[in-house]
């Protein structure tokens, strides 16, 4: 959302679009290594994105939801989380998944139509990508309940888009974590569009963060293109969730720079002009400018990073492409813990032992 629109709201931002520091940075953000970590993760995410689109265009990946322009939301969240926290993603949170330990290859497998992509090695308790919009919020409530029950000092973090805030399950889950005081953080990656429906036609609510009031939980607005801001606000929210059992709703204002998915053509419903304007706010350039200005991030470092990311992505893509499909019987192998006898004949009909 253009800066000017947000002037009345408390809206957390540290870096303006030129990478200038507009308010005192949080402690972690004075650490070059921390910022570089965030920067690298965003760049890697964008490399993954480009590769995924290329693979899809050449028929080697399924329908893919790009995260172009929204990297800061994903990375800010994941960097704020600990291994004890539980991540409950939507379908555009590749960056966070990567940072949590899901591998590039696993992501390719998932988007390539292979369930093994959800059997990821890293964060074994994290949820897989959730396609039915907003239906993951109740899972986060349940995961938060499990954390409390087990006495683990962690929180469940669910992410979804602006469109998700129109769905009943979002509200039901928010109300539940509110009244049960479960350690959950609900993040709305408001990228201004739900396929072809702009934010302004999705709800008359002043901000999406305002919706927290319906559950009696705090609703915060943050510049979702400023990874420092996202990281900091989510971090504080996680503290409140873990320590005070105070769930929090966070709206990250960002922008979907690409099509909704590779099956979509955004030119049907929005002006190139609007997209161009939003390119000025995108998160990677912004942090780069700051890194250059404040931490002497060099051209060499930049180029090396880009090369590393491309190489990693290319390698993962090759591994993915070299991975044959599972045998058909895999569709029965994990349906139940043990395949009921009654299903054996179907397995036989499927015809591969």
């Amino acid at each position, binding site marked *: 959302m253009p800066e000017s629109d947000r002037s009345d709201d408390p809206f957390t931002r540290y870096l303006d679009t030129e990478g200038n520091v507009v308010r005192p940075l949080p402690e972690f953000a004075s650490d070059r290594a921390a910022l570089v970590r965030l920067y690298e993760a965003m760049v890697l995410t964008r490399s993954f994105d480009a590769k995924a689109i290329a693979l899809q265009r050449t028929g080697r990946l399924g329908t893919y939801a790009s995260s172009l322009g929204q990297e800061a939301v994903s990375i800010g969240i994941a960097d704020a989380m600990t291994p004890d926290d539980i991540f409950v993603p939507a379908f555009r949170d590749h960056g966070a998944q990567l940072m949590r330990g899901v591998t590039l290859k696993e992501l390719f497998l998932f988007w390539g139509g292979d369930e093994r992509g959800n059997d990821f090695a890293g964060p074994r*308790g994290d949820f897989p990508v959730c396609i039915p919009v907003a239906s993951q919020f109740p899972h986060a409530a349940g*995961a*938060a*309940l499990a954390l409390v029950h*087990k006495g683990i000092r962690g929180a469940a973090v669910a992410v979804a888009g602006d469109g998700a805030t129109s769905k009943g399950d979002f509200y*039901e*889950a928010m109300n539940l974590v509110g009244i049960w005081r479960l350690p959950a953080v609900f993040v709305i990656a408001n990228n201004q569009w739900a396929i072809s429906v702009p934010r302004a036609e999705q709800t008359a609510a002043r901000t999406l963060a305002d919706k927290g009031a319906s559950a009696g939980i705090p609703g915060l607005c943050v510049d979702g293109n400023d990874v420092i801001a996202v990281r900091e606000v989510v971090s504080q929210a996680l503290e409140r969730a873990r320590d005070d059992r105070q769930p929090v709703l966070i709206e990250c204002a960002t922008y979907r720079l690409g099509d909704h998915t590779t099956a979509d053509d955004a030119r049907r419903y929005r002006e190139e002009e609007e997209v161009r304007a939003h390119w000025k706010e995108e998160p990677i350039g912004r942090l780069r400018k700051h890194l250059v200005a404040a931490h002497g991030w060099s051209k060499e470092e930049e180029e090396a990073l880009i090369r590393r990311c491309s190489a990693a992505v290319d390698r993962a893509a090759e591994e993915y492409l070299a991975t044959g499909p599972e045998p058909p019987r895999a569709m029965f192998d994990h*349906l139940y813990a043990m395949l009921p006898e009654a299903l054996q004949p179907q397995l036989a009909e499927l015809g591969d032992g």
Partner: protein
Amino acid sequence: MAELTMIEAVRMALGHALEEDPDVLVFGEDVGIDGGVFRATDGLIQRYGSRRVRDTPLSETAIAGLAVGAAAQGLRPVAEIQFMGFIYSALDQLANHAARLRNRTRGRLSCPMVLRVPFGGGIRAPEHHSESMEAMLAHIPGLRVVVPASPGRAYGLLLAAIRDPDPVVFLEPKRLYRAVTERVEDDGQALPLDRAFLLREGRDVTLVTWGGPVLEVSEAAETLAGEGISAEILDLATLKPHDRQAVRASVSRTGRCVIVHEAPLTAGFGAEIAADLAGHCLDSLLAPVRRVTGFDTVMPYARLEKHYLPGVPRILDAVRSVMEYA
């Protein structure tokens, strides 16, 4: 060993499960201090505290989704939907999540939850309180659907459902809650989740049923015995996956089958049973497979309810017609 009603047996199983496994949680609308609108959870909050027995806000989607999320992280939630008429809001969570979580993560996460749902008619309840849509649930791959029809089976099957590593929808026929009693011991013995129960042996015709109509089917079998017709009764008990072999074996012997359920005829679960016989027992069938079911209309309000439910006369008619078939 006490004489228990089904509702008491359910409560005893819940208590047993809460006792034996600290990860079992019970939640739903009014399950706490009120003890559930049918008293299935009466006394549990006093014994196990409000951390393990919890009233939820009035939101079925959240109840089901909460169970999915908690089960995925290793708890054993036993959630309640107050009446089956209100389960529709939970179906997205059941079909799109609970039933698939293990499969789509290739075993990484699983969903050992139970959703208890009082169902069926016959107690002159208000609108939307008497439905039977077990067939919709039984169509969803990855679920188990279980329907107890006696206090003992309620106890043993509910324990099995709670211990099962996969999601189970546990449908409790309301009109059986207090209709009969049975000696049930709190011995922690589970019953198998994929076996039909033989309630009565017979030679001439197999009556397949589950839930509430077990009463009328049993009564009909008595009457038929008086007419010299020997009816075998199978309580299917688990609808998904159901015990195809037991039905086939029985019908192979008797040559005749009448299926009785409360739900509407079309695409009811009786269709699956009849279809399975049409596919596997054609040569044994001496007569058409008859289904005696609720009609393909909206479950009427209390005043006409009894005309809707498959009563003894309709069951008798059907059995006699298959016996007379030549």
